């Protein structure tokens, strides 16, 4: 091959590969827009005030809503956060402030691994742990399952955020004679609070959309909230059941519910981004 031929081949390869990478990105972004766009368009067509305020209509009748499911999701997320966020916070504080040794390394690895445990496995685990002894599916069990999913995520985010607080802050506090625990709680944590809050928000967004763990714990409930020790409805669960059904009216409800879920998740993500950008310029 002559020098010129080699050069031309190299130039062509360059343009080709650069183009392919750009194409790949375009494809990835298109999929996002396709999925989200379609969901939003389809969903908003069937979304109205009734959807939020009404409960489900009898089969075949159009309209109606998912009030039970919306409330159910709120209840479950609140339950999960009530446990997941505080414990995650403390675990993250441990990892950040005391986690330099071997225990810390192990805990950190375990936390990372826990984030990768399939949510269906978590659901089965909570079934065995809570549902079986209680003898019934329950909101409590659902909350526990979601808390388990939330916990390692919050812990790691808290750790990373607390580590970002400069050592000089810690030093200054200690130099004033403040005990270490006080320093951590009153100086380091508030210093990291923005990141901790945004991390928790993202964790909430994640568990709000989880379905698999709820199949074996919360089960779903067509009659609304019946107590924490009773099965409870949830939006993702109902979306699944509606989606795999054969009825168009139910499909419409599934789209509308998906619209709400996607909007919730996206709004939280955007909000987090905006907060982070403001903070760190």
């Amino acid at each position, binding site marked *: *091959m002559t*020098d010129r031929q*080699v*050069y031309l*081949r*190299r*130039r062509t390869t360059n343009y080709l590969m650069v183009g392919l990478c750009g194409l790949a990105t375009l494809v990835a972004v298109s999929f996002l827009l396709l999925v989200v766009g379609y969901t939003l368009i389809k969903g908003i067509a069937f979304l109205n005030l009734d959807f939020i305020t009404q409960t489900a209509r009898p089969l075949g009748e159009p309209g109606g809503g998912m009030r039970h499911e919306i409330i159910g999701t709120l209840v479950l997320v609140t339950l999960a956060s009530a446990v997941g966020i505080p414990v995650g916070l403390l675990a993250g504080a441990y990892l950040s402030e005391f986690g330099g040794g071997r225990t810390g390394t192990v805990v950190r690895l375990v936390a990372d691994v826990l984030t990768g445990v399939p949510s269906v496995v978590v659901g089965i685990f909570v079934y065995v742990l809570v549902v079986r002894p209680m003898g019934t599916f329950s909101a409590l069990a659902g909350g526990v399952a979601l808390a388990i999913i939330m916990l390692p995520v919050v812990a790691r985010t808290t750790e990373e955020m607390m580590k970002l607080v400069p050592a000089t802050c810690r030093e200054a506090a200690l130099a004033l004679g403040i005990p270490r625990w006080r320093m951590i709680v009153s100086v380091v944590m508030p210093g990291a609070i923005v990141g901790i809050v945004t991390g928790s928000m993202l964790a909430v967004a994640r568990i709000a959309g989880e379905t698999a763990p709820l199949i074996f714990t919360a089960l779903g409930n067509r009659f609304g909230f019946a107590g924490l020790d009773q099965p409870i409805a949830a939006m993702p669960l109902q979306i699944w059941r509606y989606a795999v059904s054969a009825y168009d009216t139910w499909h419409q409800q599934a789209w509308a519910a998906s619209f709400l879920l996607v909007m919730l998740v996206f709004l939280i993500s955007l909000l987090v981004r905006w907060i982070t950008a403001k903070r760190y310029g």
Partner: protein
Amino acid sequence: MVVQEEMRMNPGHADNSTEKGIIVEGLNAWYGSLQALRNISLAILSKRVTAIIGPSGCGKSTFIRCLNRMHEVVPGARVQGKVLLAGEDIYAQGVDPVRVRRKVGMVFQRPNPFPTMSVFDNVAAGLKLNGLRRLGQMSDAVEQALRQAALWDEVKDKLKQNGTALSGGQQQRLCIARALAVQPEVLLMDEPCSALDPVATSRIEDLIRELKERYIIVIVTHNMQQAGRVSDMTAFFLMSNDRAGEIIEYDETRQMFTNPKDERTEAYITGRFG
């Protein structure tokens, strides 16, 4: 002004135009909206080592990166002006930087051999790009480059070893060999010895003196003693009030160091600043 201009364009009063290696005309460079170089003009001669000296931030590195079109790799960076290599402007419309960089090689401040490649593969990296495949030809080219870099004897048994297994000075000579393997016309060196110990430094300085016969060498250096030892011509750059670098003086090294024409040059050389 006119005399200085004449001095820059025709230092040492060389008459033979083929002796001129690189002619820089009206070179301006920007990083975004910040001007880094203003109106640089000079003629770099072949078979001479040209040193670029000046205080930090005066645009020395920016200048030599303009000579092999590496400046524009930085996003937002821009160049205006002409750089003539063998009579052809490397910034002319339609000139591919890839071809320019083959003719103008570069050695960086910190040795940066490719850590995933062996010594042999490091030197051959540029050759492989240009389609050289046959092992025999490649081996010869690699050996020749390593000999030119005064590294062959030290690594001839270690060719398969990883490039980073060498000492700092050896790594830098490896980078020199790598640059020489593609047979450039020019070798640009951006403070090549600043990360090395004195022994390694002096070996590279010896090397530079040998290489100047075959390549146009431009070396940026912080170290004036080094400029004095190694170079034949020296250009003194200074940052003006708006942070744009300008060339203040360009002359034979001996002349500039003993009898500088500009008072700012004298101030720098005698150590009064920078």
